[in-house]
């Protein structure tokens, strides 16, 4: 690295451009470097985000709009299917986030201990993170088939009568959440591993001399000192969970009925049906939900970090 740094600038013919005096006032870090990215970000992200607040108050067909005030939001909250969507979004986010944190931490502890084939196990665990969500969703839809699926057949072998998973209204959302955890727990685990590995060895040595048990070591050393990693996993998993769409759409499309609809799938359904104003109102609801949960949580978690 350092040899590369030294090599290029020396040995070049020095002054090639004329306007030497003018350059004294000019910063070598020109603001126009912001411009191309700023234009794209502004046009395709900032403008839609801001205009969503306006269009959520209209009846809209993309070319003409009619101002109807809060009617969309009222309609959104009156439709019971949409309330279900809101509740499901929260359940989905909390369940996936909670399971990813707990399982991820347990797996990270396992994969930082002295067990065999550690590297291989880490790789195997991480691979699903890279695989297409659609591919995973379609595969598990088949594996979770109530009568012929591999999961229920295996459960039957050990005498358990498996639930109907995606077909059962009570289990549909949780089934998708479980697949989400299966796919995403590898990322949580590698972040936790990075956190645990960065803890200085002296702490463990000191605790060993003092005769601390493994349980004490976890609660008193590993957990407090890997707090930044835990913060990251919680925030990432919550944002992902609240916004999730791909897996749910691939596996149930919100069904059976509306029992596994989340806000993101409601937004898509309203869009497909041509209710653009209503769909955008859904987007605003999602926006408010995410910011209302994530920003304060982020503050809270990072402020406790400073206290350490």
């Amino acid at each position: 690295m350092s040899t590369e740094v030294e090599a290029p600038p020396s040995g070049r013919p020095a002054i090639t451009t004329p306007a030497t005096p003018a350059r004294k006032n000019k910063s070598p870090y020109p603001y126009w470097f912001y411009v191309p990215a700023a234009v794209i970000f502004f046009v395709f992200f900032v403008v839609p985000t801001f205009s969503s607040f306006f269009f959520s108050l209209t009846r809209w067909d993309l070319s003409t709009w009619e101002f109807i005030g809060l009617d969309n939001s009222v309609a959104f909250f009156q439709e019971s299917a949409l309330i279900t969507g809101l509740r499901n979004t929260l359940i989905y986010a909390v369940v996936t986030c909670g399971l990813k944190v707990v399982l991820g931490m347990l797996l990270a502890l396992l994969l930082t201990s002295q067990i065999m084939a550690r590297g291989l196990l880490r790789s195997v665990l991480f691979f699903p993170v890279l695989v297409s969500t659609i591919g995973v969703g379609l595969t598990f839809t088949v594996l979770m088939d109530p009568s012929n699926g591999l999961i229920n057949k295996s459960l039957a072998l050990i005498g358990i009568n498996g639930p109907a998973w995606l077909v059962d209204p009570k289990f549909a959302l949780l089934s998708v959440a479980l697949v989400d955890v299966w796919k995403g727990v590898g990322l949580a685990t590698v972040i936790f591993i990075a956190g645990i590995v960065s803890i200085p060895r002296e702490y463990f040595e000191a605790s060993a001399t003092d005769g601390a048990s493994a349980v004490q070591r976890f609660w008193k050393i590993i957990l407090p000192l890997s707090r930044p990693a835990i913060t990251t996993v919680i925030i990432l998993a919550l944002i992902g969970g609240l916004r999730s769409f791909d897996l749910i759409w691939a596996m149930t499309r919100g069904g059976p009925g509306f029992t596994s609809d989340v806000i993101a799938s409601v937004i898509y359904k309203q869009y497909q049906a041509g209710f653009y104003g209503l769909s955008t109102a859904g987007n605003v609801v999602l926006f408010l939900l995410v910011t209302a949960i994530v920003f304060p949580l982020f503050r809270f978690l990072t402020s406790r970090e400073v206290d350490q």
Partner: protein
Amino acid sequence: MSTKRHLWLGLLAIVLFGVVFFVPFAFILFTAAKTQTEAGELQFSLPTTWALLQNLKDALAARDYMLIIAFINSIVLTVVSVAVLVVLSAMVAYVAQRRQSRWSGLVNFLVLCGLIIPPAVVPTVWVLQSLGLFKTLTGLIFVEIAFGLAFCVLLFRAFIASIPRDLDEAAIIDGASPTRLFFKIIFPLLRSVMVTVIIVQSVAIFNDFANPLYFLPGDENATVQLTVFNFQSQFNTQYNLLFADILLITIPPLLLFLFLNKRIVEGMTAGAVKG
């Protein structure tokens, strides 16, 4: 004593990981290699006759080689978006890190917004339509760039902070213009973080489903994820072909994983922990 416990724990872990994480992928491969009737039974078993190549051929040939066109679309989308993302976000991160002013505060705020705020779908369609970019690959490329910028700037900025300023000053004294300083001297030094950005974004964009669904609808120019999803209804009696499709879209990440596993894990954790 404790080594014996570790041995058992290790064996148990290997078996459990095998069942939970390996079986689904084996299932994809086996089903993709079966004949239509055998695949329809949804059994987890080795195929009695291996028809993998034939199935892959049939899956690719279905609906006038639509999957091949989709692969080309997906590759163009991924390559162009990631290339532009790398250059633009490195430029932003460089100036934001080197030149502290009220603008860098704004950049930080926008990066945070870009990471957290869910994109507004229909207004984006509206913007694309006003620009004549709706249902075009170009439009989708712009969208992917806009949505990916925040994360890339974050990664680049953390890395640029570790490049000494002395280097900039030496180059300036030697008479390098700002553009030259950045593209000839700083940019090549970003190679290691660039690999991370490229991998993470390629995986995200290649696997993206929601954005193509919204912004590039229609059969003729779909991406692979969308095509495979649409095949689901067409192939619901031909599980062998459906799984041949799934196998095909799993191969690119698998190749990446086999060659660059360490790099990917490093990059994802570095980005996440600093974020």
